[in-house]
């Protein structure tokens, strides 16, 4: 199988899976098998690409010419490879978890749920492998639309209202800002293909660069930079597997991934470094990190708190990319992975707690560690990773981001990371303490762990969070190529 076909298969496989899931809707066990088989084979297919990318190949697939010399084309490069591998691998774990969660909560319309999930994953593969901005934009919008039914899954009035905010902000920003930015780029440069070193250099200068960057940063609403972050807390009305894979990994990472890709392959790191008008991005990211942490501190609902924590962590990636040094660009890529493992664990735990006990608020969690030891152990590991304590994955990425910041004496970034670490500790540690050491409120109903597939899934991701601290060399090797090509 040559790598070019592999790209096509990686995008078609989830779609074929979606059809299979729809056809098997009447037999839930068969349907779940189809989901798992699709997820596993997708991961195998995506992983089979990695040796080629490691070897420095850049397989390309041109599907169709569109108009004006633009085409629907896909290219695999290190950043996209990492994102695709991450999303496809976690899809397996998430599918196992979904089975436990959806059945444990007797959710309705489960077939629609799995179908839309598979379509969303296909769109994520498209975003990861997109070879030009237009292709990326197409997949980006497909992802927004395919996740809408997942967010609105419950279908009651409050859910529909939240889903409307979700769609309104994501679609609105992409149409109002992202699309004009793409067209502007095209008019200025005559191309939309991602090139190592960027395409803007020499074509635009002065304040226009900063303005264009602004259109991208706020147009890519999925990256959840303040003030276009409101859709993420709103999306928490979705069933927890959706919040876990899509709103902690696939969708939000698609946002920061797109933004990082724009910074590296459209603007070019060196070019942007020399532009005073682009400096504001660092401050905006720093503001989002701190503000989101403060808001998270004040939340009472567990999932909403995790959502604000995600907003802050996403801006870590943007901050890292905006520091514009080789080490920080690696840090941005590593943080995409590290945060994914940690945050999906936290969401899995939140969903497991809901399934087992119907508890959603923070103050209900007193003493829950005794009832759900596995779940809370995983939660603890995830939380430590968010704070950045060794030996968790979160420490690795923070190390690189800080190293990059010191490399360029970027004190704003250093200050932000330190303060944010303290704030993260301030909102995660009390929960951990409460769960393990407080006495449970009297009168609570007795319950044990969530269904075993859910517990299995969250243990796997917790182990991955720990393992990433020790085994991160392949990721570093892969992403060093990124910097090597940029420099």
């Amino acid at each position: 199988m040559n790598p070019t076909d592999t790209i096509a298969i990686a995008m078609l496989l989830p779609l074929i899976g979606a059809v299979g899931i729809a056809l098997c809707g009447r037999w839930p066990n068969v349907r779940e098998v189809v989901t798992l088989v699709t997820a596993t084979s997708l991961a195998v297919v995506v992983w089979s690409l990695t040796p080629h990318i490691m070897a420095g190949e850049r397989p390309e697939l041109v599907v169709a010419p569109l108009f004006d010399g633009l085409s629907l084309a896909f290219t695999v490069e290190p950043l996209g490879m990492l994102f695709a591998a991450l999303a496809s691998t976690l899809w397996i774990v998430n599918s196992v978890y979904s089975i436990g969660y959806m059945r444990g909560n007797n959710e309705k319309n489960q077939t629609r749920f799995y179908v839309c999930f598979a379509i969303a994953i296909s769109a994520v593969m498209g975003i990861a492998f997109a070879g030009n901005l237009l292709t990326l934009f197409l997949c980006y919008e497909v992802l927004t639309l395919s996740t809408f039914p997942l967010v609105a899954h419950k279908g009651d009035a409050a859910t529909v209202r939240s889903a409307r905010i979700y769609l309104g902000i994501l679609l609105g920003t992409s149409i109002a800002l992202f699309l004009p930015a793409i067209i502007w780029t095209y008019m200025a440069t005559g191309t939309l293909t991602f090139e190592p070193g960027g395409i803007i250099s020499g074509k635009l200068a002065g304040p226009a660069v900063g303005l264009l960057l602004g259109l991208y940063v706020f147009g890519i609403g999925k990256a959840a930079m303040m003030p276009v972050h409101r859709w993420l807390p709103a999306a928490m009305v979705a069933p927890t597997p959706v919040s876990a894979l899509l709103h902690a990994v696939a969708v939000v990472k698609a946002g920061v991934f797109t933004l990082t890709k724009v910074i590296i392959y459209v603007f070019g790191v060196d070019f942007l470094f020399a532009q005073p008008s682009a400096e504001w991005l660092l401050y905006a990211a720093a503001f989002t990190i701190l503000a989101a942490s403060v808001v998270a501190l004040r939340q009472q609902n567990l999932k909403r708190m995790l959502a604000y924590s995600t907003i802050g962590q996403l801006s870590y990636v943007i901050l890292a990319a905006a520091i514009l040094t080789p080490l920080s660009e690696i840090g941005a890529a590593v943080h995409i992975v590290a945060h994914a493992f940690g945050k999906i664990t936290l969401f899995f735990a939140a969903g497991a707690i809901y399934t087992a006990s119907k508890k959603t608020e923070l103050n209900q969690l007193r003493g829950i560690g005794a009832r759900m030891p596995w779940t809370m152990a995983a939660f603890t590991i995830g939380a430590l990773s968010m704070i950045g304590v060794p030996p968790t994955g979160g420490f690795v990425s923070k190390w690189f981001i800080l190293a990059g910041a010191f490399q360029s004496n970027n004190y704003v970034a250093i200050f932000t990371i330190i303060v944010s670490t303290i704030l993260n500790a301030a909102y995660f540690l009390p929960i951990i303490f409460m769960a393990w050491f407080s006495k449970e409120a009297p009168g609570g109903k007795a319950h044990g762990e969530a269904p075993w597939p859910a517990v299995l899934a969250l243990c796997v991701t917790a182990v991955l969070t720990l393992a990433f601290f020790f085994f991160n060399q392949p990721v570093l090797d892969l992403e060093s190529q990124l910097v090597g090509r940029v420099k």
Partner: protein
Amino acid sequence: MSLAQQLPALQIVVPLLTAPLVVLLRGPGLSWAAASAASVMAFVIAIAITSMVLTGGALSYEMGGWPAPFGITLEIDALSALMLLLVTGASAVTLLCGRASLAQNMDAGRQHLFFAAWLIVLAGLAGIAATGDAFNVFVFMEISSLASYVLIAAGSDRRALTATFKYLIMGTIGATFYLIGVGLVYMMTGTLNFADMELRIADVTDQRPILVAAGFITVGLALKAAVFPLHIWLPNAYTYAPHMVTAFLAACSTKVAIYVLLRFDFLVFQGNLEAHAIQFAIFLAPLALLGILVGSAVAMVEANIKRLLAFSSVAQIGYILLGASFASAAGLTASVALMFNHALAKGALFLAVAAIATRIAGLRLDDIAGIGRRMPWTCAALALAGASLVGIPGTAGFVSKWLLLQAAFEQGTFGIVAIVVVVMSSLAAVVYIWRIVECVYFGTPKNEDTTFAEAPLPLVAGLWLVALANVYFGLVPALPVTLAETAAADLLSHLP
């Protein structure tokens, strides 16, 4: 002469001569079959003509063998071919799949008359697109207009009568203005043939009558095209007409008027009148922008989905004119591509409305609440066509929006204003399409009747055909874009 050479004439003659035949056949089934057959044949002819134009350039046909400028010639270039495709395609699809919907709107005894009028509209619109003679345009315009008044009033809804009356008054004023303009040009040049006019007008020393003619013609056609603020006939006419008539006319009739406007202005006036290009842009651009804003704003609050879509059409006509008012290659390309893509999107949406109306009594938003579960296929196609209207990438609507924004970027400061307006209107489109989609899928049904009640199969099939065409031309936009680019180059080649 081979048959292929006669195609331009057959394009008009086939539906025109089938019309009396349909009246003679009388039976509702037979007359429907004959009308559909003529429509499909016209569509096939249009496809053949388009492929001939694409390979061999513009076609010219002398009616009765009389050479221009004495006889009437049919001149079919890329732009006319695209209009012919739209007109005949819309007619063929709506007639073929819409029988159930029509039967609901009128009793069997009068259907043959209705189909005859339909074919006359088809012949008239095709004639306008094909002819190369200014007066001939007027004749076909009157033919199609009079017959379309019949179509709009043909339903059982009595409110259609007042809507038609309004349309009739405004349409007649528009046609009269056009005729006055043509008369003035004839007075100064002594010819009615477009190509001949272009040559002779250069010799006219006193330009004032020509300028007045340009004014009359522009305003007259703007009335026909429902350009803001002359659009007031359109919402009611679309709302109260039988659903299939709305689908047919919304897809092509206003666009034909814009086609004549472009043709007349670029061929005859722009190259010869001093500073006319600026007048053209200054007159149309503000109206286009206002139309976009007002149409979108009203659509956002309208509760009847047919009126909602009608106001969306007012906004979309604004898009088409905005592209044209740039008077650049990119702008005209966008404008022509918009005509094609909007016809696909709006045609599909009105077909979906017709499909819904076969099962549900009212067409207000609260009437259609929650029908997504009862009519899954119809509603899915509705959402798809809606996405195309909004301009989601991967659909035809995205291609034209891209072209329009790109054309606007070339325009400097005014372009920025245009971009802001287009973007705002796109967001408004998200809102009003979303109101429908959300209502259909998440609304609480009025009565708890949740039986599966999909629309008749032909209607759903036709709807999906058009909806999938939206996706096809979004991913493989070569045909409309090539035609639009050729048309834009043709139009601009007449400028000095």
